[in-house]
């Protein structure tokens, strides 16, 4: 069972949370063309590596937030509040690799 870092409550067991899909996917605008609409609705990065995802601390503070998790190691790297800018995942991965090499 994962330990999920809620930015408001701190690390809590996974069973208090629901996952809410990839983060930073802009809601389709009402006049989006079909391709952009399909991208927004149905296509996800499915990254092997770091991803930013949405979580909700449903059985806790009830709030949505974003978190960066590594899909191979299942380790959380950071979490942040909705509206905060998306982290640069490529740079984050480099930083982590450099730290791991130390």
């Amino acid at each position, binding site marked *: *069972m994962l330990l999920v870092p809620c930015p408001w409550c701190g690390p809590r067991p996974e069973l208090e949370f629901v996952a809410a899909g990839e983060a930073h996917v802009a809601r389709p605008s009402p006049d989006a063309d079909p391709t952009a609409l399909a991208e927004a609705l149905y296509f996800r990065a499915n990254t092997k590596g770091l991803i930013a995802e949405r979580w909700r601390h449903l059985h806790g503070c009830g709030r949505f937030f974003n978190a960066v998790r590594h899909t191979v190691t299942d380790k959380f790297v950071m979490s942040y509040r909705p509206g905060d800018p998306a982290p640069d995942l490529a740079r984050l991965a480099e930083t982590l690799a450099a730290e791991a090499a130390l």
Partner: protein
Amino acid sequence: MTGPFRTPTGGRIDRTRPIAFTFDGRRYTGFQGDTLASALLAAGVKVVGRSFKYHRPRGLVSAGSDEPNALVTVIRDAGRTTPNLVANEVELREGLVAESQNRWPSLAFDVSAVNDLLSPIFVSGFYYKTFMWPKSFWSKVFEPVIRAAAGFGRAPTAADPDGYAQRFVHCDVLVAGGGPAGLAAALAAAESGARVILCDEGPEFGGSLLAEPAATIDSAPAAQWIAATLATLAAHPRVTLLTRTCAFGYYQDNFVALLERVTDHRAAPDPALPRECLWQVRAAQVVIAAGALERPLVFPDNDRPGVMLAGAARAWVNRWGVAAGARAVVYTASDSAYAAAHDLRSAGVEIVRILDLRPDGGPATAVARAAGLTVETGAGIDRVLGSTAVTGVVTARHRADGTTAAGETLACDLVLTSAGWTPSVHLFSQSRGRLRWDAARATFLPGTPHEAARSAGACNGTASLADCLDEGFAAGAAAARDAGHGAVAARRFAATGTAIDIGGFAGEAPHGGNRDRTRAFVDLQHDVTAKDIRLAVREGFRSIEHVKRYTTTGMATDQGKTSNINALAVAAAATGTSLPAVGLTTFRRPYTPVSFGAFAGASRGDLFDPVRRTPAHARATVAGAVFEDVGQWKRALCLPAPGESEGAAVAREVRSVRATVGLFDASTLGKIEVVGPDAATFLDRFYVNALAKLPVGRCRYVVATRDDGFVYDDGIVARLAPDRFHVTTTTGGAARVHALMEDFLQTEWPDLDVWATSITERWAVMAIQGPQARAVLAPLVEGLDLAPEAFPHMSVATCTVAGIPARLFRVSFTGELGFEVNVPADHGAALWDRLAARVAGHGGTLYGTEAMHVLRAEKGYVVVGQDTDGTLTPDDVGLGWAVGRAKADFVGKAGLARPDLAGPGRRQLVGLRVEDPEVVLVEGAQITADPAPPPGTHALGHVTSAYASPNLGRGIALAVVEDGRSRIGTIVHVPMPGGSIAATVVAPVFWDEEGRRLHA
């Protein structure tokens, strides 16, 4: 004495406390401190089980939880019957009743032992090869017979009456394993002030030291050191000591599951105690001190009762005072077995010979010879003699040229084997730590950890007692430090004890027999031999994961603890590669079997899932309601009069609502109160409907989609005040609609000042529907004029009903004049009483969900999730009028703009009319254009709702059909097993098409 093989003295058993027990109906006596295994061995019971496939007689092999053969069923009563327990883990208690498994009629004479003679057909994959034809025989004949003949224990016949507890705990340092390394680790962590949990699967701490009374630590006998260490640990208030507790599963983020056996060892357990406790530990740091498992040598007929691990025989004699035989041959590839030979000889067992596979033996060889033991090096066992018990062995001599010759015959009743020790890396591997191959000692060891975990002691490949203690202490100190506690001064231990041989020999030992015919068992529990593995390789299986599944090696309840490395080595030899190149199969949780009860905990019976009952539930029960489950809710399906059938009740209820009036408990409807200055703006964006200008006191039927444009939920939005809305959802959709509202409020439109609060259970809701509804309700209402012009259809008001403050809606899901009275939940039953009396006074009736469904279907009102399936737009189900297309934005606007959601070929909601009024179509039935569609025909759609309509005197159906609205008046077909049914496509309204009754 408790049996011919009990030593006169020695062991950790209490010889003053004899304990009576039965095994397969025979009475035996053991001592307090015995396991079932040690007591049976003391009594001279050689055969403890029959093997899985061949039904070969089997005896004890190991003294620990890795035992492959001695699986027993322990019976307290019908419900307290536990199969597949390892006899070593069954502690003797007064009155214990145990039975062997997989034999009929008895262990000594087992009918299925004929399988052993048929063994040529039970090769790898015999299921697939032997029982291929005829196909229909598989599930009816072959599989049941095979399943009955093979297998382990039987499940109990009665429900388990025991309780199971679950605990969530946090600690700084969890130490898994209470042997020397684990005890030292716990000691160091405790000294730093850390919160420590130390657990061990056995009934007492000490691990390997319990079987080695001669060992000393810091000049004291090991037993004294254990006692002093435990006293020290127990004095620390932040240390939890758990015996009989196996750390069986290591999960993400240092979440470790422990199973504590609480009552199984007690003769008369306190009924208040749980049988087992599942500890769910979140540890900042974990020290794995799981020890090592001795590996048997693989040679022909190595499964005969009396062939056992040397370390096990040593444990039985030293810890339990049981000599496993009278005359022993020792067959070893490591020094460890020599210690067993010395200890057994001291207990009076004749050591006939030590056969050492190594050409020149090891350091222990000379010591043994000096002590007068006969050791033959470069030698082994060619085959074992005897069937239900070992009677002797034929030795094998390994020549310098690599060939092997059969040697002499040695009479014996005990064969001790040791190929070496395998570090128990199960937990480390479960934690996703990477294993590394130690070429020098030919063994897998913990490598890079994935979690905050460190391994110490034998599981880390550390061999000597002093090194295990030092390493354990250092690991405990480091773990505590990493968990944020202070430094502990390093400590070195002076210790004497037997070092184990890590590594050693793996695979099938050399012998002179025909390797394609002799059976040298690798996996004793699943009856897999070395030649089975070679056959799998010959048949083309290369990946070890495939070999494992094809031969089933390592897939029994012991998960191959004693067999995996040997299996890998046999596969490596057969494929001509090295053991590390073959790789390991996955170490799966749980380490040892866990009862379902422990996982279920309190979640069984009524507590399995919450049951939600409406405030008037008891009233409906008294009224004879038949309930159905709708999600977690109990809803009245119908309310039959005494002697009335359910079908008759539904028909009566439906007629009554149309003719007079009916009362329906609608409390399960989801309800959300949406308040705030921006509430109207929010709802206008959230639902497809235009809601911004909804006047106070009015309601609107609303449809929700997600951004994809597909219908997701529906309900009523009622405006109570400019900034306050009472929103209803479907019964099943309440939670997800509220979650979606929260999502938009928190992440998409955080600028909106709105609160959405779930109020489903705050309000009881009674629907009064039918021509007499106003007459029933009006006399109870204060502060509101119910006249049609004053309170028209789709109105809402706060008022008093039967003296109770209420939110009164004029809405209808039946097509009749209707009201829904919302009162605070505590008043629900009282309101029911008043309304039920008045409804009865007007010749009306109570009605349930089935009547509600018939009534709404007669009107063509959709049920989201029944008539819709997540692929239909509002327009598809005839609700296009609800969509506020002029709005700048709403959830779903983008999706609904997709050209293919508006083009031809959409499935649309229609009605179906069958000529024969008696025919009621079947919900879910497919619809085709062709009355006799060939297989593969494209279905035009399917029936979504179908009922017998008492008001129309015929069957009615709703369906979704491609371009359905343009097919109205045409014939479609519903192919059924009894023949195709022709149906006319009609508009989906069967009753009061003009809606006059609604506005009465």
